[in-house]
């Protein structure tokens, strides 16, 4: 039994157990204050980080945070841990792990080989003693490539989810935002709609509508309706052309139960989507969304800090080989992430931890109007994440989601970050953008200054 304590000068600081140590070591955020697990002083926080740095990585295999007997996520983490992959880092403390991750000899290939040996708790722990730049540097070394109708996550590329939400799911309203996005070069990660009316017939309508557009214009991308997994399974059973299965997931069995899911249900959904064989260049069929605070929000956090709970959700995601994982970082509100500073830190943590665990992480760089955040904070996080090699971000007209009432990154924002960092879309989608004359052929991300001919007919019919 390791001692969860640390001595600075004459004072020895005691921490009750491993989850207490992790929580106290977590950079300040409102959700941990709300849960009553945060450090009681700034000094205590740093002392906890010092204690954490001395902890062997093995401790996370010996001391689970949520009981093994009652939590299937803990069982998943422990039972499917790859001891062989872990061997390369098994001798390290958390502090040494940070140094090892930053070391030049730890290349993309090394990180990919070790990923199955890293548990969510190890990733969360090391992130707590890393600065933002550390997480950016290491995440950039991690490459996670997935594919369905195009290939996402390649070096030097950034994809976008086109999010054409409409408050009443009006087909032409959705199509208008979708076309606007395409004409700005967005949509290679997925066309993803959050439905306003959440029932099976509506899901089938929206899936069919997007499938028709993808087919008619031969767009190398995939569609998804962000509805409950049981609705998607029902839609597949009724013959709907489903590309990706969506589900929100969290890091404890109890939190997932509050979402109405468990691992078996997710496995059933993945099998159903795979059976349709709709992918052309790959078979990653799952789209997961996560976000710090969801376990606490469901009162299912068991005293574990919100960032560690979040990392545990990635164990769930990893089991089902997703095409996309999206941390919706600023959506939950200021009681979990109070301001731009906390949102930015959380976005970088989520991206880093997920990449370290081998997941195709993207980020909904976003905020609500009751958070102390604004467009400048989003510019900062977008630029930092794109620098870190984030797989995808959202694209929405003018940053304003008129259905969900929050702000996320716009079509214009994606072009800004392409220009600044030279990040290209997924290769298949980029070829389509050039072939349709939406983009110029020179990888300078220049847009057609009029209407690309491919959509001329559709617009002329409206005139």
């Amino acid at each position, binding site marked *: 039994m390791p001692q969860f304590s640390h001595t600075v000068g004459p004072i020895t600081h005691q921490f009750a157990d491993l989850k207490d140590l992790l929580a106290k070591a977590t950079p300040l955020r409102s959700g941990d*204050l*709300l849960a009553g697990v945060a450090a009681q002083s700034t000094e205590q926080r740093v002392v906890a980080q010092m204690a954490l740095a001395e902890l062997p990585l093995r401790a996370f295999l010996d001391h689970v945070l949520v009981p093994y007997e009652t939590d299937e996520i803990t069982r998943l983490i422990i039972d499917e841990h790859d001891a062989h992959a872990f061997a390369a880092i098994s001798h390290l403390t958390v502090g040494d792990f940070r140094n090892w991750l930053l070391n030049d000899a730890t290349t993309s290939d090394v990180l990919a080989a070790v990923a199955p040996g890293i548990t969510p708790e190890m990733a969360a722990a090391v992130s707590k003693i890393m600065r933002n730049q550390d997480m950016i540097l290491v995440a950039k070394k991690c490459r996670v490539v997935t594919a369905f109708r195009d290939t996402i996550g390649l070096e030097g590329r950034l994809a976008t989810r086109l999010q*054409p*939400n*409409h*408050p009443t799911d*009006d*087909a*032409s*309203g959705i*199509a*208008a*935002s*979708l*076309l*606007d996005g395409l*004409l700005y070069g967005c949509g290679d990660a997925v066309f993803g709609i959050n439905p306003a009316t959440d029932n099976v017939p*509506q899901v*089938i*309508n*929206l899936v*069919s*509508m997007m499938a*028709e*557009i993808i087919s*008619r*214009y031969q767009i190398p991308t995939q569609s998804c309706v962000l509805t409950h997994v049981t609705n998607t399974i029902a839609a597949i059973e009724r013959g709907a052309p489903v590309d990706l299965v969506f589900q929100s997931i969290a890091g404890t069995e109890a939190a997932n139960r509050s979402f109405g899911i468990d691992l078996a249900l997710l496995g059933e959904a993945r099998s159903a989507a795979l059976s349709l064989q709709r992918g052309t260049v790959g078979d990653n069929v799952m789209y997961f969304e996560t976000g710090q605070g969801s376990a606490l929000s469901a009162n299912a956090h068991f005293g574990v800090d919100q960032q560690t709970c979040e990392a545990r959700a990635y164990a769930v995601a990893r089991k089902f080989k997703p095409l996309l994982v999206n941390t919706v970082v600023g959506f939950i509100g200021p*009681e979990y992430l*109070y301001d731009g500073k906390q949102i930015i830190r959380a976005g970088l943590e989520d991206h880093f931890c997920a990449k370290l665990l081998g997941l195709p992480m993207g980020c909904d760089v976003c905020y609500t*109007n*009751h958070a102390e955040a604004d*467009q400048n904070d989003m510019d900062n996080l977008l630029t930092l994440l794109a620098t870190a090699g984030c797989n995808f971000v959202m694209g*929405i*007209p*003018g*940053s*304003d989601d*008129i259905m969900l*009432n*929050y*702000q996320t990154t*716009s079509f*214009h924002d994606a*072009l*800004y970050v392409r*220009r600044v960092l030279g990040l290209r879309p997924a290769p298949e989608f980029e070829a389509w953008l050039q072939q349709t*004359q939406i983009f*110029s052929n020179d990888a300078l*991300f*220049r847009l*057609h*200054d*009029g*209407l690309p001919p491919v*959509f001329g007919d*559709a*617009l002329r*019919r*409206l*005139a």
Partner: protein
Amino acid sequence: MMSDPFCEKDPLASPVTDNPWQTLRRFTSARIALGRAGVSLPTQPQLAFQLAHAQARDAVHLALDAEGLQQQLRDAGIPGAADSHILHSAAADRLTYLQRPDWGRRLGEASRQALLAATAADDAAYDIGFVIADGLSALAIANNAVPFLATLQQRIAARGWRQAPLAIVRQGRVAVGDEVGSLLRTRLVVVLIGERPGLSSPDSMGLYISWMPRVGMSDAERNCISNVRPGGMRYEEAAYRLDYLLTEAQQRQLTGVQLKDESAHQVVLDTPAAPASLSFLTPP
């Protein structure tokens, strides 16, 4: 001679490239066809966004004029206004409120004692009580609470329900209505609350209904009607839906998930079938 379609026209003449698909704005209030300066947002839509955000931010931080609201409710003759209560949640101020949703769900001790004292005098019980809380937009309450309640009364007056004194709660969240409702001894409580402001809707009001309200109820035990405002769900429609839910709740003695499904089904019947999966992009 073919010109390069990707090369901007004379930037001295106009540094903004308009989008020739502005006709699509007829289909959505989304910020589409904004045009671009280079690849960036032109100045006009950039500042229009900033204004909308500023209005939404101001709505979050606007203080509820509870006394003024109380007077308006009395002037409008809303039942329960005469002996209405002004209460405060356990969240002392807006900054605390934003970070401690648990405190916004409970009455402050002084308000709790005051309400206990006010209801101790008799053992009156009620069929329904209305709790008006600022929530995340006092603007929503200031704009919508009185005219909506007036519209609703026209619909429910004939039902003969015993209506409890109105309660106005500062720094309140939805669940504070459960505590107020239980202290007032009302079988149904309806919370009118300012919703999280969106950029295009800083004054949306939500309605939450609980049967046999008590502290500690879960969200799944409530029904909700959202986006009540002249530019969203009109008062008449919201009053129709609420009356339906209240009547059903009285008959079936419950609120929550079981009730929700059937009311939703009912509403579908009222609206024309949505165009299925066709849009202008994929005509038949």
